[in-house]
């Protein structure tokens, strides 16, 4: 502390400790991976270095006597409606380092959240609601190309062979998070949960550790611009392949795994040397146009004997509907659209907070466009980016998504407190770190249970919501915007979402 640089003084949190309640168990000391707490044996006291605190609450959570509270640093700059606290701090930081500000997790800026401006319809009198505790309630979801028409022979047997489908027991999947950005234990947790739930997890662009090949039936393997860990074996290891074009948190740039996080297992899986930065190119250098994408889609289909659906994931950008239409016509079986609240392990803050569009409007636009073109059946549509609860999911499906990807909420189920330090590789919750001491904080057995609990809870809520809408199968909610109404939205916004104003 003595040698601190005054310019680094502007920190966000303070660890408040009620010494009367401290029993010197040192849980806070061992748990803080940022060096914010230490024990002074001379005085038999625990102190904090507040400037190291990131507000992850690991210490306060583990304190058995609740003697710690993490509070916002009361140090206040003069109030300024234009220069907000974070503007000022970021500026100082950059003046000190000359660097781009990197951050983790999703956009935290107060853009309008459309989920919160949509309400769901319920049955009253004319139509009985359905009680999911007493009646069957179906969430099974098929992702993949659907035939426009089933051909039948004279006996009435169907002769059309269904294209490969991903069969989900509930319309929720775990979104792409690469091995390396999250550690092996988290990958395993997600994989285990997917298997138990009958859903899918996505490897992200970091390859698939050999030890997880056993979860292949519930795995979507990703192929991104860096091609990390991509091999014929890898492509065939999963149930589907996803081409990652973009990511909601950082549209237009590639993935970035800092070298500090590239340890042995990651190096082996990604097929890169230990300690090197794994920086994916901004574009796929073999995809400069939609025709090139088509070539890659078919190359991957060839490589997997047309047995696996191919997904293409894009960030939600202004022209997302037209892009999605192109992707559908390029032969993709699934399109994943990742809105700007989607998380990331590392992204320039300027990009994360200012580029892309919300998932809500992106899904509405894409679904509508594909319908207008009569090709909605050719692809499944997966919404991603910022799903916080089951009602967000219900609304996304009513807007037109077939299923959703969740990642931030999955990590939160595992312990994440959204401290946005993923890029530093010191995650105190043991999630976005490969440090052996920290990684073991995620016990896949426990974490998988929590993930399963979360998805069960959400699925049950979705069933309840379907029931109150008088619907007993999720497919009858898909694109059923009739059951949504907008509250507090302008006419243009309603139009973008394709929904009516409440009361009409």
């Amino acid at each position: 502390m003595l040698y601190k640089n005054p310019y680094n003084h502007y920190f966000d949190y303070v660890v408040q400790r009620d010494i009367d309640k401290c029993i010197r168990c040192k849980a806070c000391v061992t748990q803080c991976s940022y060096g914010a707490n230490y024990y002074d044996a001379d005085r038999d006291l625990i102190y904090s270095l507040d400037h190291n605190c990131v507000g992850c609450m690991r210490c306060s959570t583990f304190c058995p006597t609740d003697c710690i509270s993490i509070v916002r640093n009361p140090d206040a700059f003069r109030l300024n409606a234009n220069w907000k606290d974070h503007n000022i701090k970021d500026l100082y930081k950059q003046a000190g380092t000359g660097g781009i500000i990197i951050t983790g997790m999703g956009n935290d800026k107060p853009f309008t959240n459309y989920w919160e401006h949509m309400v769901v319809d319920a049955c009253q009198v004319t139509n009985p609601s359905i009680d999911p505790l007493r009646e069957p309630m179906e969430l099974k979801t098929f992702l993949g190309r659907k035939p426009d028409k089933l051909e039948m022979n004279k006996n009435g047997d169907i002769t059309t062979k269904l294209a490969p489908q991903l069969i989900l027991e509930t319309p929720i999947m775990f979104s792409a998070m690469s091995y390396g950005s999250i550690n092996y234990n988290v990958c395993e947790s997600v994989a285990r949960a997917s298997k138990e739930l009958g859903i899918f997890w996505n490897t992200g662009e970091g390859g698939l550790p050999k030890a997880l090949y056993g979860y292949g039936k519930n795995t979507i393997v990703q192929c991104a611009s860096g091609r990390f860990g991509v091999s014929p074996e890898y492509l065939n290891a999963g149930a589907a392949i996803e081409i990652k074009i973009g990511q909601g948190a950082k549209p237009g740039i590639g993935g970035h795994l800092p070298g500090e996080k590239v340890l042995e297992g990651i190096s082996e899986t990604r097929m890169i040397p230990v300690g090197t930065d794994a920086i994916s190119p901004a574009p796929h250098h073999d995809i400069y146009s939609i025709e090139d994408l088509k070539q890659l889609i078919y190359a991957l289909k060839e490589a997997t004997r047309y047995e696996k659906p191919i997904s293409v994931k894009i960030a939600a950008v202004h022209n997302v509907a037209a892009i999605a239409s192109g992707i559908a016509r390029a032969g993709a079986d699934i399109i994943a659209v990742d809105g700007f609240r989607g998380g990331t392990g590392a992204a320039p803050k300027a990009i994360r907070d200012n580029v892309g569009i919300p998932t809500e409007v992106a899904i509405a636009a894409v679904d509508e466009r594909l319908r207008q073109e009569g090709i909605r059946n050719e692809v499944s549509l997966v919404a991603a980016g910022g799903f916080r609860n089951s009602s967000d999911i219900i609304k996304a499906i009513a807007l037109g998504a077939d299923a959703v990807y969740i990642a931030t909420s999955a990590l939160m189920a595992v312990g994440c407190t959204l401290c946005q330090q993923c890029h530093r590789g010191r995650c105190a919750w043991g999630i976005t770190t490969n440090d052996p001491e920290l990684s073991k904080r995620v016990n896949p057995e426990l974490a998988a249970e929590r993930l399963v609990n979360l998805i069960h809870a959400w699925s049950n809520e979705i069933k309840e919501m379907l029931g109150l809408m008088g619907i007993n199968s999720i497919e009858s909610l898909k694109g059923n915007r009739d059951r949504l109404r907008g509250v507090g939205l302008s006419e243009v916004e309603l139009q973008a979402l394709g929904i009516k104003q409440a009361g009409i």
Partner: protein
Amino acid sequence: MGIKSSTPYGKDFGGCGLAGIIDRSGKSVAGNMIVSSLTSMKDRGNGLGSGYAVYGAYPEFKDNFGVHVMYNDAGAREPVEQLLKTKLKLVHAEPVPVKKIHAIADPPEFWRYFVDPPDSMDKTDEDAIDDLIVNIVMDINERIDNAYVVSSGKNLGVFKGVGHPDAIAEFFKMQDYSGYLLLGHTRFPTNTPGWWGGAHPFTILDWSIVHNGEISSYGTNKRYVEMFGYKCTLLTDTEVVAYLLDLLIRKKGLSLAAAASVLAPPFWKDIEDMDPHKKDYYTALRVSYANASLNGPFAILMGFDNGILGLNDRIKLRPLIVGKKGDIVAIASEESAIREVIPEPDDVWAPKAGEPIIVTLKEDAKQ
């Protein structure tokens, strides 16, 4: 009446009574029969909509498409007739005969047109001809203000409007019609005032639908059929069922039974337990036509040139009863309505949830 929906997702729904009678031998049943059957369930409706479909109504024009058009404004007739004349060959046009009665105030105008496809078309290409008719129906409904196509099938007459079943029957002189298949519907709309176009049956080509219930999946179904050019303009969910059936059966080539199992698919848990062949069959149907499945409570009767289909939703949230005696089969919301026309039926039963009842004309009854 504000007819045009302000947004594309409107629908109306309610409780209803429905009835259907078929003589499998193809013999004509008097129009009064369906009227008395339906009138026995008068309390299922509230006077805001009743209607009838009569298959075999126009033996003299049986090979022409019979297009019934409702005009809320006399000015709409000209563009409709212009359209029909331009796109089709108009064989015969006349107003639908009605009787002015006290119970029916301010009715719209009804005309019927018997038309043929233009000579330029290949008469054997039935699909193309049907598509043309459908397109014209959609065009009129959507584009021409105050004009609505009530029916468009061959040898089919549809008579519907705002009023109790007996009043509507009197207004349209139902006693003057007879047919081998008759459908009737009495309506109890709850959300919007009834209007003439919103009364059942809903039809497209030979398909006519009467419906009791509410299509909770309406938004999904509507947006699905819209991908194939159908326009849902009549402000009620029942309309979409007609289009779905037309789509599934005529365009997608499904059998009636297959189409019924798309509308009310088996539960996945039941599919799981099926033998592999059946399992694949139902899985393919459900997966491919997921957007066509109907959710919510419903009992529907669908008439077509060769018979009738009765279908309930998957958990049977609306009544549907079948009765038969000899070649006569009646299906209705209530047993009383059946006994009205078949006083001593051989058999009366309630079909299971999602179980389609398909009654077709006997082989020798087809002309």
